[in-house]
């Protein structure tokens, strides 16, 4: 009671103190977010400006910066290895993205039927997606081994002589695609969450209307799941264009550059040959390609992605 009276008195008498309270909060706010501001200025804004600048210079760690104009870009556009890397990466991306979208969806649909031990199956399908990078690459090198690997031994038991996978110009990228499809469990998890969000009354209504299960699938499941498909598609494009570890570790870009991906080429130019200007040009080109593809998908989404509660124009 006495305290309450004291504080109201204080507020009337000491307006300056009240203002400084506000200022204190302001200062505290900036202090709290200061780690991010510093990080943003150095590692995001600063780095991006520097990276854009580097495109117009020829430099490595030892010599200074020599102005190079647009030559990094013109050189890149006429570089047959750069073209090859674009081709390899798009081949991989355009195969693996739809494939893992489809596989993820099929598994999710299967698991969504209320089977016994559902969470066990989910765990098993998701497990490959938990591990990634180098360990997975080492494991699959052994599986793709032309003579003693699991895959060719299985094929041989079925009476088929398997290809030489990582040692073959034609089969190295398909090998990566198989590995990519193996990681479809991430897509599956998101589909499962999406499927569980579809209101059951929609299915009941369809059944009353006498719709076949195929019709129900195309008219209810797919449209209701389209935001998830859209999300998986975007993330898939972004991820697959950055394929690197497999190409470096399993094939080192070979045979005969059949697996020279954009990121691997960037790595060689930037971190093996220290051509920072040229590597930055490649990095920006990769960014522009992924950005354009993403925008394309975004533009197309108006036609095929259905959002509940969306305000139609």
């Amino acid at each position, binding site marked *: 009671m006495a305290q309450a009276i004291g504080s109201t008195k204080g507020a009337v008498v000491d307006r300056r103190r009240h203002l400084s309270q506000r200022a204190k909060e302001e200062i505290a706010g900036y202090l*709290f977010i200061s780690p991010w501001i510093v990080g943003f200025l150095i590692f995001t804004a600063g780095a991006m400006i520097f990276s854009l600048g580097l495109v117009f210079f020829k430099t490595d760690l030892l010599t200074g910066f020599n102005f190079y104009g647009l030559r990094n870009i013109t050189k890149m556009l006429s570089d047959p290895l750069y073209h090859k890397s674009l081709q390899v990466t798009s081949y991989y991306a355009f195969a693996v993205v739809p494939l893992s979208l489809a596989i993820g969806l099929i598994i999710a649909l*299967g698991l969504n039927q209320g089977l*016994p031990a559902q969470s066990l199956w*989910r765990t098993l399908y998701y497990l490959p997606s938990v591990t990634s*990078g180098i*360990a997975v690459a080492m494991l699959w090198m052994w599986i793709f081994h032309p003579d003693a690997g699991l895959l060719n031994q299985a094929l041989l038991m079925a009476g088929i002589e398997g290809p030489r996978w990582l040692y073959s110009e034609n089969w190295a990228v398909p090998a990566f695609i198989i590995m990519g499809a193996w990681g479809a469990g991430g897509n599956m998890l998101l589909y499962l969450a999406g499927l569980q969000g579809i209101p059951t009354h929609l299915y009941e209504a369809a059944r009353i209307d006498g719709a076949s299960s195929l019709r129900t699938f195309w008219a209810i499941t797919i449209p209701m799941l389209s935001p998830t498909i859209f999300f998986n598609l975007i993330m898939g494009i972004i991820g697959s264009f950055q394929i690197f570890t497999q190409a470096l570790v399993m094939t080192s870009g070979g045979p005969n550059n059949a697996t020279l991906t954009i990121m691997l080429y960037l790595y060689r130019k930037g971190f093996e040959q220290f051509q920072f200007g040229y590597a930055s040009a490649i990095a920006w080109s990769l960014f522009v390609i992924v950005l354009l593809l993403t925008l394309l998908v975004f533009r197309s989404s108006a036609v095929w992605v259905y959002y509940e509660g969306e305000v139609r124009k």
Partner: protein
Amino acid sequence: MSARAAARRPGLNRYRFLRIFWRVVLLLVVAIGSVIFILPFVWMVSTSFKATDEVLRFPPIWIPASLRFENYIEPWARLPFSTYYKNTITVVALNLVGTLLSSSLVAFGFARLRFRGRNILFLILLSTMMLPSQVTLVPTYYLFAKLGWVNSLRPLIIPVFFGSAFNIFLLRQFAMTVPLELDDAAKIDGCGYLATYWRIVMPLMRPALGVIAIFQFTNDWNDFFSALIYLNSPKNFTIALGLRTLQSTILYVPMQQVMAMTLITMIPVLAVFLIAQRKFIQGIVITGVKG
């Protein structure tokens, strides 16, 4: 009505039988599919215990005649795997502290304190989530090279202490749901902002912090690219980079030992996933991030 139902009964039975039949078929397909997904792991474990002559045999053997633990002990003793493990644990532990601390501090600032330009700064933070990491790769390397930090663990650790936009966003959303009255109550009790952050908001953010910790752990453990560009000498290698040295033809490491070390590399991540599975899956569904 009841007469009609009775007339239908035989049909109903057939319908039920078909339903059960299809469910069994579906269960079988799901089970076989999951076995195919798991088979590479089983093959790895099986190979890692084999004797040399068993590795190359056709048709493949799944259960070796005896479990050869030497396949694990020998490369571990011959190569500096304990150093690789120690380095990886250092990076992972410091990065956990770094990301949890910095991201929650910044999130607290954005969620609970009023200051000029807050909304614009938060919009900038959101937009950085879409920026490509490959573009900043070369400049970041250049910076660390000029600082003389290449071939040390610092480039793998220091950047984490500035918070990641994604984690900040996640925590800020979470902190927004904590009632502001709690802050006022804390203030009346004489808590400053730092004490409010640490004693009130931090404990309430625990579920979200758990999700972030799991992802940070798996990402750091699996991280190959940063280790590859920044670390040169084996004494600084993380496990991801150390595993790659097994490929070298000079060392000549037989396949069963390679698989043993690969398994040892995977185990911590698999263990965290299996133990914290519910949290892990919940996190993926909330954030849309795939392992």
